[in-house]
């Protein structure tokens, strides 16, 4: 049985459609109920919905053999997994944003508000800029408005939220998209089934490009 961790929400539904097209359908997943685990004995596959930021943990610890996680989560938590495929879904970017009129003259320590402390620390360390990280869990955009921070490091999709708060992107750190990941040990023992799925999804991704 291959255990697949899918991120709850619209992205997860799109990803499930790709697994279904690959021949690993599980009709019960489409039933309107509150179940979280769905199994298709015949196809030897079991899907479960988990919080998107938890997918990598399920896969790293072997509770799921494969799963789909955002590159933001993989960069932030650095799990010991295989990253097999870029699904080209959920595309956005990790960026530094600040009030439209902000200018970093480099004279003092930069205050950075973010949910992604490791990504922010690694980015500023790579450019040799001294920073003070302020870890927040949501509504990051208001931090520079209330002078809690100079800039923010956050995911930017369309930029609408930034615009509405008079913020703009100052630099892009890394492009983000959903990635198909696998547990390293599962890949050794369930490799044939995993490769079959990866091959089919790779073709779907190419066709969608």
């Amino acid at each position: 049985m291959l255990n697949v961790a899918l991120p709850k929400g619209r992205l997860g539904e799109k990803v499930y459609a790709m697994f279904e097209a690959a021949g690993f359908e599980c009709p019960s997943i489409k039933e309107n109920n509150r179940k979280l685990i769905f199994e298709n004995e015949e196809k030897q596959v079991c899907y479960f919905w988990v919080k998107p930021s938890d997918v990598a943990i399920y896969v790293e610890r072997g509770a799921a053999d494969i799963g789909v996680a955002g590159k933001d989560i993989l960069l932030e938590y650095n799990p010991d997994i295989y990253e097999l495929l870029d699904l080209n879904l959920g595309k956005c970017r990790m960026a530094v944003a600040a009030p439209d009129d902000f200018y970093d003259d480099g004279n003092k320590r930069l205050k950075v508000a973010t949910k992604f402390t490791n990504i922010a620390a690694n980015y500023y360390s790579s450019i040799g800029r001294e920073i003070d990280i302020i870890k927040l869990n949501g509504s990051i955009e208001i931090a520079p408005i209330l002078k809690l921070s100079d800039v923010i490091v956050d995911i930017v999709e369309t930029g609408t939220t930034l615009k509405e708060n008079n913020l703009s992107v100052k630099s892009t750190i890394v492009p983000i998209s959903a990635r198909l990941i696998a547990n390293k040990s599962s890949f050794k023992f369930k490799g044939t089934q995993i490769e079959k799925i990866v091959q089919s999804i790779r073709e779907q991704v190419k066709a969608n490009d």
Partner: protein
Amino acid sequence: MNNILRSEEKAIFALRTLYQQYGYMPFKMSKFEEYEFYIQNKDFLVSDRIISFNDTNGKLLALKPDVTLSIIKNGEDKPGEKQKVCYNENVYRVSDNTHQFKEIMQTGIECIGEIDLYDLYEMVMLASKSLSLISDNFVIEISHLGLISTLLENACRNSNFKQEALGYIAEKNSHDLINTFDKYEIAAEKRDGILKLISVYGERKSVIAEIEPSLKGVADEFLAELKALSDMLDALPFSEKILFDFSTVNDTNYYNGIVFRGFISGISQSVLTGGQYDNLLKKMKRSSGAVGFAIYLDLLDEMPTDRAEYDVDVVIIYDQNTDKRYLAEMVEKTVGENKTVSVQCGDSANIRCKQIIDLRKEG
């Protein structure tokens, strides 16, 4: 007796016997080393967080976070002789999950001297035999850091490129590796060979056949070493469980040649890691080479096991009116019948047993 040993304890016993059969002598070391020693070699350690404390004379000591370093430090180069040791030691490291220190039981072997093909074979063979003693369903995968490094350096001399590419090879991440090729403007004809390090893995002969064309004239020496090793491994009974997979990438500052790791079905991460680490000895100003591996026995807890239905066979319950000599006789009689027994005063609902002998009723 075998039934009452935990999988970790059974493994220690079986592995020590195996290693001694092949002439690996037990190496017992102190739990402490000078803190400074680890700081000088912190890159070799999994984590640089070490438990340190002051000795009675004020010297700063550390609880061992690693065994290999201590073995190398205490050995000496003897031309023509190979130092072969096995160990079974606790090391103290920070857990990735809890970020707290934990004690990890590690067992392993090291061979220090002039390393040749036979030593590499013996090491991979013993790694495979070790895992076969723990489970039938295991895999050993072998990689070659000399080969990977040469291929990467042949494509680009920039050390940042090498580090980034090694990371992506370890993740089997070809999409980001291609972006890195673009970033460092790697020539088109050099890309294919590197990408094959990700896409080609598994059965040894077919891997060699696929990577050979891109390595010819670039890494002939390493390819020949892999081939020769593979041929020797053919004779092993579980040869098909030993694969080539270049996603095994250890620190190139210390490891230089063959590296390998082992997986057991049902355990979520590799339980065995090893390889040739001549570079570490060079760093310690020693002329020898070395190869070795370690098995992380704490991970065996993840192996699916049948839960015991009972804690003991018999619970004997007595009270203050029970004749204690009779009680002692009953206990010895039960143990004599090869049963396990727990003597309890009063009801003991928490102990799961097959039979209860209640001496209170018998007066």
